[in-house]
């Protein structure tokens, strides 16, 4: 009885190791996390502001629907290169 209990515990540990280890390995190999949004996905609508020099202006993605393509260029901070 006792021996069977030990092997059961060992079995669970091996199972857990089998699940966790490949995940750790995969994380180590992939420095770039995969993108949440992929080519072909619908881009979520948004409403954001910019300052045109005298007023705050609203911009939505949906205002361009059917009219023009949109390049959405995310950058890290103002006053950095690129």
């Amino acid at each position, binding site marked *: 009885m006792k021996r069977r209990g030990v092997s059961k515990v060992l079995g669970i540990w091996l199972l857990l190791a089998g699940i966790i280890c490949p995940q750790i390995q995969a994380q180590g190999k992939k420095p*770039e996390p995969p*993108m*949440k*949004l*992929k*080519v*072909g*996905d*619908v*881009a*979520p*609508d*948004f409403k*954001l*502001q*910019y*300052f*045109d*020099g005298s007023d*705050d*202006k609203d*911009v939505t*993605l*949906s205002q*361009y*629907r*059917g*009219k*023009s*393509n*949109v*390049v*959405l*260029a*995310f*950058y*890290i*901070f*103002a*006053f950095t290169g*690129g």
Partner: protein
Amino acid sequence: MKAFQQNLKQLEAADTQVLGVSMDSPYANKAFADQIGVTFPLLSDWGGDVTRQYGVYVDKYKAARRVNFLIGKDGKILEEQIDREAIDPKKIVDACERKKVSR
């Protein structure tokens, strides 16, 4: 942003609106735009809601990754450029040109 400015005429001729997005304030972005001579809007995602929605928020920087999305007139994503690749927007400019020709 400068690279998009250099290609702005080509992009506009291909029916493409360029929008920069960062988590800076609208006023910091305006000053940045003036300094580097950018004439397209630099949008302010103060708080980062849209940055998170697009899955480009980086905890380590408390800011966005450098990512360019090209979104078609139907609202679907046509191209993505990520991190280092996103510095040179040639892939996106070329994709816009191709669309213009194929129309």
